[in-house]
């Protein structure tokens, strides 16, 4: 059972309330594909990912970034049982998509950096701690159904 303090809940709700899903999602996924290019292995159907410019202008990447962020929104709305909320998603990523779970951590780190860049100095160390705890719980829930 994950225990959230009131302060942590407040920080996380605050981040999501200020987040533009249509901007942050694409940016995070683009950054992941550029900074960790081996992640492109899961997106061979997305067309041209040959260089940073191609990735940044790829509409499928952008669309999928938005999908990912809406998935995180669901976790935020069910913070007290992310494990259950993500059970099907976990099976999907393991059984159907065959994603190496280390990639969840890479995407999480890139999203953290996108949010840090957007929020600037209001992304304090305490806010960062709460946010990364949230992402760690999300990643753990996504990994749960792997066997």
């Amino acid at each position, binding site marked *: 059972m994950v225990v959230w303090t009131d302060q942590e809940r407040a920080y996380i709700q605050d981040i999501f309330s200020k987040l533009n899903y249509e901007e942050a999602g694409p940016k995070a996924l*683009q*950054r992941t594909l*550029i*900074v960790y290019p081996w992640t492109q292995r899961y997106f061979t159907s997305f067309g041209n990912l040959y260089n*940073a410019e191609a990735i*940044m202008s790829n509409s499928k990447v952008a669309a999928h970034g938005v999908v990912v962020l809406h998935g995180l929104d669901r976790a935020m709305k069910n913070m007290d049982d992310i494990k259950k909320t993500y059970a099907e998603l976990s099976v999907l990523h393991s059984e159907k998509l065959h994603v190496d779970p280390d990639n969840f951590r890479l995407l999480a*780190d890139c999203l*953290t*950096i*996108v949010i*840090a*860049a*957007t*929020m*600037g*100095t209001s*992304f304090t*160390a*305490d806010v*960062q*701690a709460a946010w*990364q705890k949230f992402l760690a719980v999300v990643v753990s829930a996504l990994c749960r159904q792997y066997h």
Partner: protein
Amino acid sequence: MSLSDKDKAAVKALWAKISPKADDIGAEALGRMLTVYPQTKTYFAHWADLSPGSGPVKKHGKVIMGAVGDAVSKIDDLVGGLAALSELHAFKLRVDPANFKILTHNILVTLAVNFPADFTAEVHVAVDKFLAALSAALADKYRLTHHSGASRASANRGTSNDKAKVSDAINKISNNRKGFFFMF
């Protein structure tokens, strides 16, 4: 993952921009690390104050970023250039190398917070590669069999000893092939 000329150029360009703020960046990155990854505090139990912005944190942040800046100037030979620092971390400080990744992450977050326009995805990948290469150079002197603590000669003896042990083990396994396969 070796650094291309483009990576090195990107790192040097960013460093030129941020070096006036190096001390603050170091202090902030360290403060973030101690807050977000509390297990890292175990290496600083001797400090009076571990809170972000405290005297010891600011002082040490300056030391760290100074070393990063030095590494930028030695970007063409990080292993050679950081040999002494590596011995310090291996034999005296004995920092678990997994923590280098953690500090790297917090340096990247600090750069994103303070230089969002400059820290593009392309700069991010170059800096991440550089800090990974720096971390590897810092870990280079770890697990040398014989460590008087200093001389390169004893370090070399260590590695040839390792090679002898490994080929010894391989010989034993191939001589006991039947037994070995029987185990499975």
